[in-house]
């Protein structure tokens, strides 16, 4: 029994795993090299972190300019009830709280071909950044983050809109 256990259940499986690792490395050399150089991100969190580091953050002035000339689609990342109370006119609601684990739906919610600006409450919330990171990951280009968000927009007394999306 002991001999069987040691040979068949420990030694041989370990040998197979080692052999697989060697073969996997040899057949994916470019990927291994890039990974060892730190160019590849593996967890979802690391991917979003990487994407968000490359995001452009815009100021209130830039956000209002984009609003005035209608050059961008605003995406409100806050919860639905906050969005209903008030949001930037024309903004669509993609609540990060709901969407974070089912982000395959994002492509259905966000129309393609627009320059996108995400926002949430303000600088103390990160839903806008995380949502923008996922949008970038999903292949949307031209995604920017209005980090001042709803708080700055409302303080500046810019136009707001109420109601459902």
């Amino acid at each position, binding site marked *: 029994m002991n001999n069987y256990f040691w040979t068949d259940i420990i030694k041989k*499986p370990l040998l197979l795993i080692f052999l697989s690792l060697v073969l996997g490395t040899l057949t994916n050399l470019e990927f291994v090299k890039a990974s060892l150089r730190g160019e590849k991100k*593996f967890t979802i969190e690391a991917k979003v972190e990487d994407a968000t580091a490359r995001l452009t953050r815009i100021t209130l002035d830039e956000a209002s300019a984009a609003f005035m000339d209608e050059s961008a689609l605003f995406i409100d990342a806050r919860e639905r009830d906050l969005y209903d109370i008030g949001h930037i006119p024309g903004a669509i609601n993609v609540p990060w709280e709901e969407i974070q684990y089912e982000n395959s739906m994002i492509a259905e919610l966000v129309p393609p071909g627009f320059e996108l600006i995400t926002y949430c409450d303000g600088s103390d919330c990160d839903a806008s950044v995380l949502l923008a990171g996922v949008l970038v990951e999903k292949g949307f280009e031209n995604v920017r983050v209005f980090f001042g968000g709803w708080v700055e927009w409302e303080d500046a007394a810019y136009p707001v809109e109420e109601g459902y999306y």
Partner: protein
Amino acid sequence: MRNGWKLIVRLALGGLLLYASVGKVTHAEVFATALSNYRMLPSEMIFLGSLAMPWLELLIGLLLITGIWKSTSAFMTAVLFLVFTLAVAQAMVRGIDISCGCFDLTSSEDRIGALTLIRNLFLFTCSLFIMTGPKQNKDPVRTG
């Protein structure tokens, strides 16, 4: 008769593992994305898993078909399908909507769901079936 069934199940599992592995062995990066979607492993494990897992499937598949190292390959098949079952189950419990990464890495249509879970459980049961039974003692009894 039982041995006949075992042979059939062993060949079927071997073929399935071979089929599942061929598209993945040289596409570790795509497979790594599929693994990361399950949100259960740290970076290092995803990296090593994406390299080793497809080849492990291929080697175990070959062993099952050729009948070499029968008890080892049956044991490892069971472990593999148990891990796959748990991975799908935890994703479903957490409400993560992802593609399986089981066979076709390029398809996003291959979503995980109850069927994936049942399939993996069935395959796990099959691998237990080929594990069971008295181990044939190949060594002659030593009498002195």
